[in-house]
């Protein structure tokens, strides 16, 4: 099977400064791929570049064998939780319904079937009881799960997630991992920015190590080495639990 997502020499610049330099990477279909790297490494930017949300200074991205414009309906996006205004007057259910907006197209509003489907997505993340609650009254973990439910609503084949585990409680982490596992069983591909290196080793099978350039990419067993982590994070890698516990991995 071909790769779900491929970056071909992708560079991205903000103003004059390159934040991503010539990224070449392939993420196989039906894999769970983590993107890791220090702050400012361009992890979120790489996700946005794949989605076409930031202009590419060079290179191209192939999504599910086509361009993003062709495959939009097959791609679900989970932005960083901090990127939105949680005081916005909207219920959890209405946020999830936004996942249907792409396929509805212009001038059509979600109907009863979409509503039932949105309830089902909330059920999958364990929030069906809170469907009518205003989003500011949800905990951080619950808000993150609402975002995941909205992505599920898109019925995508490729899910791009920006730090879905940032600052969430244990219940949420488990709920999200269960959903991601189920998605992968169905042949979906998951690409997630992740900070917890120990969790990457445990739960993901692919990894991209990023620090403006691509340091390493491939199956976790091969790419997630002490050397690569040290190169990615600089000297601070010694403090990273995932690397320090087994310095000889991969050699």
């Amino acid at each position, binding site marked *: 099977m071909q790769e779900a997502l491929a970056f071909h020499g992708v560079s991205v610049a903000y*103003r004059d400064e390159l934040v991503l330099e010539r990224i070449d990477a392939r993420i196989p279909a039906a894999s769970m791929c983590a993107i890791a790297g220090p702050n400012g490494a361009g992890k979120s930017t790489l996700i*946005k570049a794949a*989605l076409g*949300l930031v202009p590419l200074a060079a290179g191209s991205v192939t999504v599910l064998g086509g361009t993003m*414009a062709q495959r*939009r309906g097959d*791609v679900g*996006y989970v*932005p960083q939780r901090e*990127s*939105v*205004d949680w005081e*916005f*007057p*909207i*219920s959890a259910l*209405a*946020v999830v319904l*936004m996942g249907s*907006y*792409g396929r*509805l197209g*212009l*001038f*059509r*509003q*979600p109907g009863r079937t979409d509503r039932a489907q949105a309830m089902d997505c909330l059920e999958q993340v364990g929030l069906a*009881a*809170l469907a009518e609650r*205003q989003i*500011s*009254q*949800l*905990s951080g973990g*619950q808000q993150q799960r609402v975002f995941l439910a*909205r992505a599920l609503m*898109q019925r995508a084949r490729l899910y791009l997630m920006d730090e879905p585990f940032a600052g969430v*409680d244990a*219940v949420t982490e488990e709920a999200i991992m269960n959903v991601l596992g189920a998605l992968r069983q169905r042949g979906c591909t998951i690409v997630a920015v992740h900070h917890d290196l120990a969790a990457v080793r445990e739960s993901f099978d692919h990894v991209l190590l990023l620090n403006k350039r691509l340091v390493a990419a491939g199956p976790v067993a091969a790419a997630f080495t002490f050397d690569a982590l040290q190169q990615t994070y600089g000297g601070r890698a010694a403090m990273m639990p995932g690397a320090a516990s087994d310095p000889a991995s991969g050699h």
Partner: protein
Amino acid sequence: MIDPSLAPEPWLTVDDLWTMATAVLASVACGLVGCWLVLRRLSLLGDAISHAVLPGIAGAFLLTGTRDVLPMLAGATVIGVATAFISSALGRWGRVDRDAAMGVTFTSLFALGVVMMSLAARQVDLDPGCVLYGLLEFVPFDTVELLGMPVPRAAAWLGAVLVIDVVLMLAFFKELRATSFDSAHAASLGIRVGVVHLGLMAAVAANTVVAFESVGSILVVAMLVAPGATARLWTDRLVPMLWLASGIASATAIVGYLAALELNTSAAGMIATISMVGYVGSVGAVVTIGATRRSSRVGRPSLSEPLP
């Protein structure tokens, strides 16, 4: 025989009712569009645009030499969209804050507008003061024939704008809601975030221009922001917020006009004052209610406590 001159003078004349209707139409139209500005945390941009449209209006005067609404509408809408565009471009490339970019754009356009206004005033009968404060009291004297009866021109225009606002809002409700809440996700769905934004800015500009002649540009700012901000205090849902804002806008216009009539003062100024009183009163009420609820809940598990 009863002497007609002895009959009690009616409390409100037909002219009063028309003026009040015009104020209500202006209020509701601006209030509805303003809800989206409040939700997008762009209240200041509404202020910016309503000031920045001045050069567009003055330009239209200078070019056509008339006070027709259509050329003014075209000029102001172009400038309104340009304001949104220039301030976002300055923010992106000029290495300045969004607030600073907006501030620079609208003050300089407003200043340009004042200069052009005073130039235009030499050619056509145009009073910069009436642009700022409006001439609500004179609304009934300028009528058009509509369905066989004389309707104030301002009311006809504002009614048309309100209908267009509502139709557009219904047609693009999904897009407005998605881009206001989470523009990055909306863009990933293929929604044209930039087009929706510019469309909203064009609507703000068009509403401002049509409303400014009757209520003045200063009151337009109050009408854009106050109903939405007040309604948001009372509800956590979008559709009820839009209804509530319309209701608040209407009530403000009616109460403000009646108060102005009673106190024999400027109607536009009174309406703006009432809308401020409504907002401040709502803040007070909501804070008090919140405090009462919290204290009555002490010792009991809270309903809004997040579940695991």
